[in-house]
């Protein structure tokens, strides 16, 4: 199975919409068997989704992502784990061990349920 991560230096890229590098990780039996970088220079939501699909990516791990991009990618049957932050190696480990959704790897204010973000007072 292939997992893609949008990376920047040695961390997860803050914003998928303008990330420029993909790290593709091949996973068999819960271990990473191979990893390589792919340039990610296309810009439109459709071309980004198409590129991921061409690379046979099944799961995308990224930082923030705007809904236009997210919808398009999910429409290609790719699962997104969004709002992830942290060092690339730690994030991959967390993915393999199933702990990626712990708050340690969540962007601030982007957690689920209990860990909800800031609520606007209206």
């Amino acid at each position, binding site marked *: 199975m292939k997992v893609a991560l949008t990376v920047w230096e040695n961390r997860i890229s803050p914003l998928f919409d303008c990330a420029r590098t993909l790290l593709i990780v091949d996973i068999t039996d819960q271990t990473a068997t191979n990893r390589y970088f792919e340039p990610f220079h296309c810009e*439109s939501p459709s071309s980004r989704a198409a590129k991921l699909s061409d690379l046979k990516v099944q799961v995308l791990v990224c930082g923030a992502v705007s809904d236009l991009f*997210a919808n398009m990618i999910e429409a290609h049957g790719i699962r997104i784990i969004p709002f992830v932050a942290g060092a690339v190696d730690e994030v991959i480990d967390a993915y393999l061990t199933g702990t990626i959704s712990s708050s340690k790897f969540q*962007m601030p204010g982007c957690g689920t349920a209990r860990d909800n973000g800031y609520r606007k007072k209206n």
Partner: protein
Amino acid sequence: MKKDKPDQIPNHVTDIILESVSDGVFTVDHEWRITSFNHAAEEITGVPRDKALGKYCWSVFRSNMCEIDCALRRTMKEGKRFVDTAAYIVDSKKRRIPVVVSTSLLKDESGIVLGGVETFRDMSLVDELRRELDARYQVGDMVSRSPSMHRIFTILPQVAQSDSTVLIQGETGTGKELLSRAIHELSPRRGKPFIAINCGAFPDTLLESELFGYKAGAFTNATKDKPGRFAAAEGGTILLDEIGDLSAAFQVRLLRVLQERTFQPLGGTKSVKANVRVIASANKNLAGMVKKGTFRQDLFYRINVVRLDLPPLRERKEDVPMLVEHFIARLNRLRGRSVTGISQKALALLLSHDYPGNIRELENSIEHAFVLCPDGEIEPHCLPDNLRALVSRPTTNAKIDTALQSVEAQVILDALKRNKFNRLEAARDLGIHKSTLFRKIKMLGIDLPKIDGRTKRKRVH
């Protein structure tokens, strides 16, 4: 900050000030970790302060600048302030929020750099207003960037205010009804009813009762009074659509109503006063019909007080890209879809078509494409067959390219001519950058006359 400082403002006062400003403000240390985060920053980013403090700024701020060209990073490197850089951030609900950002160094009293300060302003509202204010291209629901339509847009507010009868002429699908609605909405009668009736759709007797209503007993089935469209439009505006289809007999009746501003319901004995603004539309040239004797001259004069002629779409193809964008945005909104745009090839096909059905036909083509293209860009294969005739014919790719290019060349040449060969104006007219226009002129081998219009032409606004 001044060197010879007077009494220092106590720290807690600066805190209060920071908390009360509407701009988001945060500071970072040398490691890009957030050291302060004000109330407005919480509001705009949606991240609570206690979650933001100590975190890397990019994991909280998440802007399109972070990775590629961070203003704060440049400030820290070059020691310079940057003011009002336009950018966007993405919040935890995946929404893009437009912001403008300013950055400067954070120094202590002795001038030692502690880190950086970033202030940012939420521009969502401003963006929305700006879009609305772009009235040059939009009136009511109508969009257009063509000069012929702009002449109409420019005089429309006065026409609307005047309360006089308006005649709108144009082929089917050119937007006659849309324009009448726009007139109604810009007029003092806005808020009152707008009623449209297609005069060509009824035989005389039916049209009479439709327009003027009837009284109980007027005919066998008339068991009670029924008000007509004129009564329904009281205080508002009535659109008499396709007025060129009226029979000679009905033309006389209508003339009387327009002259006297009163009408008589069928079977009634009293005339009713009508406070209704009349707009008439025709897809034929009424003046020509007058000459041929098929339309009464006196009625023509009565309705031809102000005349607006809507040009067919094939004479303003420069509107096609903008209309396509408009329809995509509207359908996305209506259907909750996320079609992102149209590919160049598909747009070229749309530009090479003649549109006997005008804008309605273009609108239908985009609807068709929405059915076939679930998301992404609209590609040629999503368009209706009659438009794709150009691709499906057994031609080579080279031939298609040539066809597309000749269409493009035509569109560019038209724009240049319209703008007296002023290239800058032509580029603006086409909504492309002037260097793109230069490149295309060269690539397509468009011959230009020696003049370039720049020197002679004055801008009229």
